[in-house]
């Protein structure tokens, strides 16, 4: 069977109401970005510790 673009979607739509999708800019609040940056820094710190251990 060939499903062309006009074919029905394969999943059930549960709600037809049109909600506005939040943008990435809205999802990425200061708090979220700060937490992500902290995780990156934490990972960098662990990597440095691991490298230091390997050198010993």
């Amino acid at each position, binding site marked *: *069977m*060939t*499903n*062309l*673009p*006009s*074919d*029905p*979607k*394969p*999943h059930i*739509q*549960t*709600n*037809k*109401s*049109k*909600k506005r*999708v*939040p*943008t*990435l*800019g809205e*999802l*990425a609040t200061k708090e*979220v*970005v700060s*937490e*992500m*940056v902290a*995780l*990156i*820094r*934490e*990972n960098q710190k*662990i*990597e440095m510790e*691991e490298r230091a251990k390997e050198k010993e």
Partner: protein
Amino acid sequence: MKVFGDSKSDKELSGKYILLDNDFLNQLFRDPEVLVDFILRFDSSAGFLIDTLTEFEFSRDIYNFKQRKAREEFIAKSIFYPTRSVNYEIFNHLLDNALLLSRIYSQQKQGEGKSFTDLMLAAITMLQSNTTVLITGNKKHFPLCIFDTLTVYNVEQDGDGSMRAYCVVSFNQNKFKKYLEQLKLSEKGSLKTVSFHIESNKEDINPDDIPF
């Protein structure tokens, strides 16, 4: 600033979901400045999508518990949505797409070096081509015979200061139809039962049925 690219192209991604290849996800996780640069560039997009297979690649081989935990917490943040490939029915649709794409790639002599994950990411981008683009540092895994390059970002790397390119690609339905016809012709009608899936166009995105 570490991310260089045409800012006009950023706006073309407005309202689109951006599916992440593992190399790009790792790039975000390596450098806070790069993370913030990309968030600012893509601020009008609908967010990042991470597939289960990409999540697996991002998490594999990490034996240090603290590192693993940091990675898990990172991708659990609200700017990332999971794809719907965990749904059994959708997974089967994606397999159909991936298999067909692999055949088209091979016929067009662009089939080498594509992993299962590459094919599945291509299949997702195909299924949701009206809402989703893909960003990757391995453009050759998403070949020209099917995908259009929308824009390219160069990212300055820490350490040696080299540049790494990341491409945003979209599924081109016209190219797909053209090469599908070629495939059908080459198989002399035996591909009559070929199965593939592309979701119908929508005027706008309903978060209750599309987002993941």
